[in-house]
């Protein structure tokens, strides 16, 4: 199994360290499309930056203006659907989240991505009054990143259990879970005192327990079902004989001594 490396500084340290490697970027184009120009014009002073990426308008705004911007997009520019809303964790690099709203204009077949930056610990205004789809999206963002949403009708975890600790989509969250996550089911069902009895999770799918004589055993080390394992004494192994091969007799084809 791969060694687990803590990913606390995953953003500070380059993942790929080739000296001559240039990270590919999607080219940013100027806004020349008439519809997009009109959209940017309608948003007026709210727009901090705007460009086109792969035929999609990207609009950077201030985190306080998100409700007003989406209201203009919905009522004046025809963006009647908010197809996705979530965040990206840039805490290690910039100390803030990037939040985005993916908007769709069905009549024009155009998409706009509204992007803003939000400092850690700050809350964002809910756009649920404008788009019902934002209800679940904002709950998921709260669940996965811990970003609070003001005036949300029912801000509660949506994917993880209500009593879960931590926010799994943060880049500091380990993939195999922290201590709370790895003991969650044991703590919940049996209680903390059963941790010693049940033991830690086995994260190695190829692991075979030599003490476990009831489930899987290593080939060549088979013992009778349910044998009490004792490290001191060797358990006599009787292999089966089939019409094709006798496992008790060493064949001439066996190259190495089994260790």
């Amino acid at each position, binding site marked *: 199994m791969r060694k687990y490396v803590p990913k606390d500084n995953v953003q500070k340290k380059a993942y790929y360290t080739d000296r001559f490697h240039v990270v590919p970027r999607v080219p940013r184009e100027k806004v020349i499309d008439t519809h997009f120009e009109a959209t940017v014009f309608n948003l007026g002073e709210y727009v901090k930056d705007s460009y086109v990426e792969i035929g999609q308008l990207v609009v950077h705004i201030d985190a306080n203006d998100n409700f007003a911007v989406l209201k203009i997009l919905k009522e004046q520019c025809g963006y009647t659907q908010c197809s996705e809303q979530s965040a990206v964790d840039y805490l290690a690099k910039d100390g803030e989240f990037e939040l985005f709203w993916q908007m769709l204009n069905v009549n024009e077949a155009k998409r706009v991505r509204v992007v803003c930056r939000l400092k850690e610990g700050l809350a964002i205004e809910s756009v649920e009054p404008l788009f019902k789809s934002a209800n679940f999206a904002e709950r998921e963002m709260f669940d996965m990143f811990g970003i609070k949403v003001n005036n949300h009708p029912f801000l509660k975890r949506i994917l993880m259990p209500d009593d879960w600790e931590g926010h799994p989509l943060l880049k500091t969250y380990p993939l195999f879970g*922290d201590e709370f996550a790895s003991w969650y*089911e*044991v703590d919940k*069902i049996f209680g903390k005192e059963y941790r010693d*009895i049940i033991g830690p*999770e*086995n994260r190695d799918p190829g692991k075979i*327990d030599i003490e476990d004589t009831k489930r899987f055993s290593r080939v060549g080390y088979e013992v009778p079902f349910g044998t009490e394992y004792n490290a001191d004494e060797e358990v006599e192994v009787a292999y089966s004989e089939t019409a094709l091969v006798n496992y008790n007799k060493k064949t001439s084809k066996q190259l190495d001594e089994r260790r």
Partner: protein
Amino acid sequence: MAQHQVNYASSAGLPIALTSVDKLVNWGRSNSLWPLTYGLACCAIEMMASGASRYDFDRMGTIFRASPRQADVMILAGTLSKKHSEFARRLYDQMTEPKWVISMGSCANTGGMFNTYATVQGVDRIIPVDIYLPGCAPRPETLQYAMMMLQKKIRRESADMKKNTKQDLTTQAGKRARLI
């Protein structure tokens, strides 16, 4: 006075079958295994196919029951998430004795490819398992075979469930944990 014409002493003449209680009880138990209608993920689709007309579990006396109180086999078919583990254990606790558990598919056996924070790494961490069924997902034939293996296992057991050793969640891992 009428003479009895039946010769009871000849072969198959006696209206009596000699057997042991164990065999009789296990004959009944093994031929009416009622699993719980309970699916977790894609393995449950294969489980449904096993129950439907093409593979036809009913001919083995295996009829899915919608209540844990009427079921005596729990087929854990699919990925068990940590959020759901509490409810899976509760369903198991609600089943009446005697009860058996089949862990169906890689995810239920070991967590499978979901080596993540949100998946239970093998249902035997919370529920004692009788049959581990490999595959991703196992075909209906495989589930039928597992059912037949479970029947064989039950026929070997004692009618008194207290005498049967169930997989103890505390044996393997716990012993090592205590040693360390």
